[in-house]
């Protein structure tokens, strides 16, 4: 109704209403929004500003403190007389130089004034003359009238002779008017320039002594107070205080190269905008910042430390590598910590977490066996080998020989097949030839036949090459785990199922990971390997030995470098090989003795060509004795190389049979009272087939040698590029959602939130390999994830995770970033692979700062350190390569007397015989030479024989009470050698390098800290080394270098000489 009777003349709601209010409001809100967007741009997206101002604060405070300390120190130093004298000298020099200096200064000033006074006149004159000369040159010589030309010439002359008046300042300060014509101006001007140059030069000469004195002073201070001096610190402080907000950026864009994961384009890293301590312009390399230094020890959010490993930055300059190349992350982003660190869903290359930071090294150093500065990574590689990962998972670089051997064997097979075919063809061709209708046809057939025979002989030569290569390879290829062909001789049968059931119950440190076998599976496998093993011949039964002596031997000969013994806190020894605590429960005594004597012995040789173990019958057939070793390594049936040794890395310790029995007897005592259920079913043939299937299903044959399955390959995924697989290729199973929401499999919350990333996957997988089967319904055990559980500590898991995270597809990186060493560096890496394989580092320190297994053992503490095996950091420089070859081949250095060390017979611990293949030996030799940066070709220097005088002289020194060499060094006299602590000199001739020997006798302590060898035997005196002890008067005159003399003498020492001297020493006063 209302609309029908509108109130009289109502105002029109549309025209009368004003929107001004609303418009104003809207406009204001718009302004606010714009303001916000500017704030966001300036502040919101620039959190680094806050960091920078904070850094400026704390860093300035830090520097102020340092500066104060430094200034105090400098003041103290200035008080010392030494400084005073130098200071005085400097002042004196200054006093002498100053007056002359002043004078020259004044003369220079005068010259400058005069030049200033004349310059205007000179320039005008010059331009005028120049112009007129040009004009004149432009006027053509008209043969007729030359007037214009002449007039121009006249003008020019006039200009040249025109005089210019100059207000000329004189030395006494007076100013007089002098007039010059053009030439004089010119001359005067140049003269003044020369004069100034002369004066400056003079001044330099005059001040030289002052400079020298001051330099001396500075050098003195620098030497007494190393590090940044107060003025440098002040400079830093200045720059720290006046730090302006700016993005600190590393921009890497080498032309035509790709330096970031996005492929193409430049790498832009702005990490230093917050990590200001990493910016060398702010924090010079000579300064290291820790949070504690900055008083931020507690602070979670103050990323100001300087780089933890400055040396790495020397090798990998920031301006070439940036940060994210090694560490990952989104170097460009600065708007928040998450984005900058690339720790958000859609950034494929997140920052490595601190515990995995060394994964970055692996990216480019994937081919290394040992990477300096990357202990965690090296540990990861070590575990990958020792824990048997390598058994199932292929990884490029690991265990290359195995692949090479396979290839060699494969091609041998092919060639032989071809050879056989050829022979058949030859026969046919000959037959055709015989039955040929025409003569020349027959000729052709015979020709073809002969060609084929020739080809066959070619094939044979190829096969020979392959065979001799295989000979070495068969020697080099080692298996991760023991040979199962001999378990009937080796093991207590009842122990096998118990072990299979749960390896970690029997040995918590077991190399063999723990399979989750069903009872029947375990039974089947046990039965199969038992029935599959060789039944005999039975081993000679050994009489028992002396356990106590055995224990002593075990603990001193060096077994514990690889093996550990004891459990829990009482456990000692290395984790490279099995723990021996309960070995008594598993091994047969007789076998153990044989094993300790020589672990490489096989019951029967394996023929890779026929894929079977040979029997005496095979040898008998070719009426050969059943003898097989490295010399007799060809198969009687087909003439190809045999596997004549156990493929184990365990070396031969050259023990006497008695010692072996003692050790074995001791080991037999290592047992608990565990009662084993009788495993009667082991002989039940019904298990065989199933067992065999299971064994190849679980890939046992990849680590163990098992009859009939010798050629089984690796069953695991290759891990070479594991770290760069896209995340969705990793099957998190039903844990996916949990992982995304940071819930760990056990229901607890993950400290770092979501663990749906490679790190998370690797960690969980290594901790519990079947974790991603959680909630899955998999009734058939063989459908379940069957990666076994390795025995790993938390740190081990992190180490392996680091190793895997770093293992990325190399094509993601620019080739020139990938470390592919050549020459010595290559030799070093090649050597490290072998060192890692045989665990040389268990006994020897090879790299500086590297730790050995033995050095941690209780029996090598304190003064017993002297009983440790020699440190090899200098080995390449110390010994001659040829000698080293021989030594590695036979550490006893004697074919007959082998129950001892070749060099240090006085040591309990023994260098065992590894039966290294020739190329392994040469690789090791070059390794040691390269490691101590020796040239890879060795030229033995000539050693001049001694004159009679020199001999007497040397003898004096050699036997002088100040240096009774033979007191400690071995002489070959058993009574004496009991107490000796140093090698026999007779070895020196072939063993030592003269130059090293000299360095050694001069300063042994600096090469091997804590050595028994006395230092300071010689003193340096006008250009030569002189013996530091009493010398008979008639020898005082000797002018030569006595150290050289002694070296020459030692290297030419004859047994007779030594006998004689030794006799003298023992009778002489040196004895008491």
């Amino acid at each position, binding site marked *: 109704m209302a*609309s*029908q009777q*509108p109130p009289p*003349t*109502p105002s*029109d*709601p*549309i*025209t009368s209403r004003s*929107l001004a209010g*609303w*418009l104003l409001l*809207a*406009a204001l*809100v*718009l302004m606010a*929004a*714009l303001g*916000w*967007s500017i704030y*966001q741009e300036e502040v919101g997206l620039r959190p680094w500003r806050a960091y920078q101002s904070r850094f400026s604060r704390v860093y300035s405070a830090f520097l102020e403190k340092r500066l104060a300390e430094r200034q105090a120190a400098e003041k103290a130093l200035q008080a010392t007389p030494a400084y005073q004298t130098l200071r005085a000298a400097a002042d004196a020099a200054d006093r002498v130089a100053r007056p002359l200096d002043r004078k020259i200064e004044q003369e220079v000033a005068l010259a400058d004034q005069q030049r200033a006074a004349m310059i205007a006149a000179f320039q005008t004159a010059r331009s005028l003359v120049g112009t007129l000369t040009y004009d004149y040159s432009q006027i053509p010589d008209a043969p007729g009238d030359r007037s214009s030309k002449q007039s121009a010439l006249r003008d020019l002359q006039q200009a040249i002779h025109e005089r210019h008046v100059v207000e000329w300042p004189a030395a006494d300060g007076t100013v007089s008017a002098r007039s010059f014509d053009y030439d004089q101006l010119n001359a005067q001007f140049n003269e003044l320039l020369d004069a100034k140059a002369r004066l400056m030069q003079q001044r330099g000469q005059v001040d030289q002594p002052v400079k020298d004195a001051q330099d001396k002073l500075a050098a003195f201070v620098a030497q007494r107070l190393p590090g940044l001096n107060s003025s440098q610190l002040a400079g830093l402080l200045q720059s720290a205080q006046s730090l302006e907000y700016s993005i600190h950026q590393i921009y890497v864009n080498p032309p035509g190269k790709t330096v970031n994961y*996005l492929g193409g384009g430049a790498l832009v890293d702005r990490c230093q905008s917050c990590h200001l301590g990493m910016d060398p312009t702010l924090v010079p390399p000579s300064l290291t910042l820790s949070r504690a230094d900055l008083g931020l020890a507690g602070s979670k959010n103050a990323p100001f430390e300087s780089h933890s490993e400055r040396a790495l930055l020397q090798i990998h300059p920031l301006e070439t590598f940036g940060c994210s190349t090694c560490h990952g992350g989104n170097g460009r982003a600065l708007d928040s910590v998450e984005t900058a660190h690339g720790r958000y*869903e*859609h*950034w*494929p290359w997140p920052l490595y977490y601190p515990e995995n930071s060394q994964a970055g090294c692996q990216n480019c150093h994937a081919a290394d066996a040992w990477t300096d500065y990357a202990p965690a990574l090296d540990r990861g590689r070590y575990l990958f080998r020792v824990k048997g990962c390598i058994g199932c998972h292929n990884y490029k670089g690991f265990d290359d020989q195995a692949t090479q051997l396979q290839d060699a064997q494969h091609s041998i097979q092919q060639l032989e097949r071809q050879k056989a075919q050829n022979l058949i063809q030859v026969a046919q061709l000959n037959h055709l030839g015989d039955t040929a209708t025409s003569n020349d046809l027959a000729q052709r057939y015979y020709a073809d036949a002969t060609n084929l025979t020739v080809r066959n002989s070619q094939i044979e030569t190829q096969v020979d090459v392959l065979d001799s290569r295989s000979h070495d390879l068969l020697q080099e290829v080692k298996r991760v785990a023991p040979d199962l062909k001999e378990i009937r001789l080796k093991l207590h049968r009842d122990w096998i199922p118990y072990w299979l059931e749960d390896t970690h119950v029997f040995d918590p440190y077991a190399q063999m990971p723990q399979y989750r076998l069903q009872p029947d599976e375990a039974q089947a496998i046990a039965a199969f390997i038992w029935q599959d093993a060789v039944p005999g011949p039975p081993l000679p039964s050994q009489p028992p030995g002396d356990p106590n002596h055995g224990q002593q031997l075990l603990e001193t000969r060096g077994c514990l470098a690889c093996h550990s013994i004891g459990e829990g806190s009482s456990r000692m020894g290395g984790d490279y090989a099995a723990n021996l605590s309960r070995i008594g429960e598993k091994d047969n005594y007789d076998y153990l003795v044989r094993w300790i004597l020589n672990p490489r012995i096989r019951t029967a040789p394996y023929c890779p060509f026929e894929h079977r173990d040979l029997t005496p019958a095979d040898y008998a057939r070719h009426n050969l004795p059943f003898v097989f070793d490295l010399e007799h390594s060809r198969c009687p049936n087909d003439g190809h190389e045999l596997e004549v040794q156990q493929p184990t890395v365990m070396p031969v310790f050259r023990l006497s049979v008695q010692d072996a029995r003692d050790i074995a007897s001791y080991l037999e005592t290592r047992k608990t009272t565990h009662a084993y259920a009788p495993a009667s079913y082991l002989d039940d043939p019904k298990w065989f087939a199933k067992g065999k299937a299971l064994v190849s299903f679980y890939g046992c044959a990849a680590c163990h040698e098992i009859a009939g399955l010798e050629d089984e390959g690796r069953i695991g995924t290759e891990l070479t590029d594991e770290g760069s697989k*896209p995340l*969705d290729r990793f099957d998190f*199973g*039903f844990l*996916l*959602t949990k992982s995304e*929401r940071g819930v760990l499999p056990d229901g607890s919350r993950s400290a770092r939130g979501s663990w749906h990333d490679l790190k998370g996957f690797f960690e969980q997988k290594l901790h519990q390999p079947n974790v991603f089967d959680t909630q899955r319904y998999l009734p058939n055990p063989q459908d379940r994830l069957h990666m076994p559980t390795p025995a790993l500590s938390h740190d081990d898991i992190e180490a392996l995770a680091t190793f895997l995270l770093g293992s990325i597809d190399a094509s993601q990186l620019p080739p020139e970033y990938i470390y592919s060493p050549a020459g010595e560096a290559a030799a070093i890496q090649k050597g490290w692979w072998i060192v890692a394989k045989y665990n040389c580092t268990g006994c020897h320190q090879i790299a500086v700062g590297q730790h050995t297994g033995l050095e941690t053992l209780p029996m090598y503490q304190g003064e017993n350190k002297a009983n440790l095996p020699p440190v090899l950091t200098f080995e390449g420089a110390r010994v001659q390569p040829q000698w080293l070859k021989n030594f590695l081949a036979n550490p006893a250095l004697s074919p007959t007397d082998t129950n001892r060390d070749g060099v240090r017979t006085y040591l309990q611990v023994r260098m065992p015989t590894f039966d290294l293949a020739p190329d392994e030996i040469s690789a090791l030799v070059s390794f040691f030479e390269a490691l101590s940066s020796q040239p890879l070709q060795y030229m033995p220097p000539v050693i001049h024989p001694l004159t009679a005088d020199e001999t007497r002289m040397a003898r004096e020194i050699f036997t002088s009470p100040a240096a009774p060499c033979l007191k400690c060094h071995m002489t070959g006299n058993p009574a004496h050698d009991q107490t000796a602590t140093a090698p026999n000199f007779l070895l020196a001739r072939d063993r030592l390098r003269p130059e090293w020997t000299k360095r050694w006798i001069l300063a042994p302590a600096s090469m091997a800290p804590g050595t028994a060898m006395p230092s300071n035997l010689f003193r340096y005196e006008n250009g030569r080394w002189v013996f530091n002890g009493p010398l008979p008067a008639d020898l005082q005159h000797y002018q030569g270098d006595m150290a050289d003399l002694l070296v020459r003498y030692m290297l030419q020492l004859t047994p007779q000489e030594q006998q004689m001297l030794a006799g003298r020493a023992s009778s002489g006063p040196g004895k008491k």
Partner: protein
Amino acid sequence: MFGDWHQLWVIVSNPDNVPVVALLFLVPFFTWFGLYQGVKNDRLIARLEADPELARTHHRKTQPYHPTWAKEVHVWPYLLRMELLVAIILTVILLVWALTINAPLEEPANAAITMNPAKAPWYFLGLQEMLEYFDPWIAGVVMPTLIILGLMAIPFIDANPLGNGYYTYRQRRFAVWTFLVGLEGLWIMLMLIGTFIRGPGFMWFWPTQTWDPDRIEFQANRNLDQLFGINGDWLRHLLPASWNAEIWAKGLFGIIPVALYFLVAAWVFYKVINATPFSRKVFGRMSLVQTVVMELLLILMLSLPLTIFLRLLFRIKYVWETPWFSI
């Protein structure tokens, strides 16, 4: 498992889903807003129909009116100021939106790594949803074309002269219903399903059900002919041996239900169109072409929900299967 609110939050908070969430509120609001004004007009119409006298004098609007007021006002300033205001407000909304929510950017494109779920942009999710029920050539090509053509055809098949330039429901019941069903009941509904319901593998996850990529769905779709066990035995002896009787049988059989549906649907719509005297009057104004086109479009439109219905309830994939195409 249900009750996973985190999952729901993940979907809703996905930047690209913001417009869909907005849609959830905007569409109902504006539908209400339009119909509300329509109903107000309808009341007025009812009054005027009842009272011809009033109808002659009345200004026939619900907006306030006075004879002295100008029928038209100047664009400047009365309209422009309004436009300015709206522009400013819109700008503010955009600015704030852009400041608070970042446009998504995922990993660099990589054909080797498939996304799960791989979804079209939200405004095409309707089509992607149709893909679940139809062969691509229908869902991806025929349907879109029909939708566009159908929309364009509307003005030419709507013979109802009323409701031109004012909101009304009563005068255009059928038109309004059809359109709302089409736009909101189908297009937007499918889009919402595609956004909120379709998870990994484009499987059906109810709200607050966790999107589990490992989930496996029982799928056993059969064709109508299988339901009736058509295998062409009865046809085999009639055909030359070279012909594949089964295919022919299925092909021929398929025609039946399709034809049936067309007839029934046509009849139903005919009834609906002629439900009231008024609608009969409107129908009377329609030419044959108009009728046929409208019937066709309506039938095809109805086929969409029907197919979905068949698929979801009876797991029927095709009703008509031939080697070349299947429906």
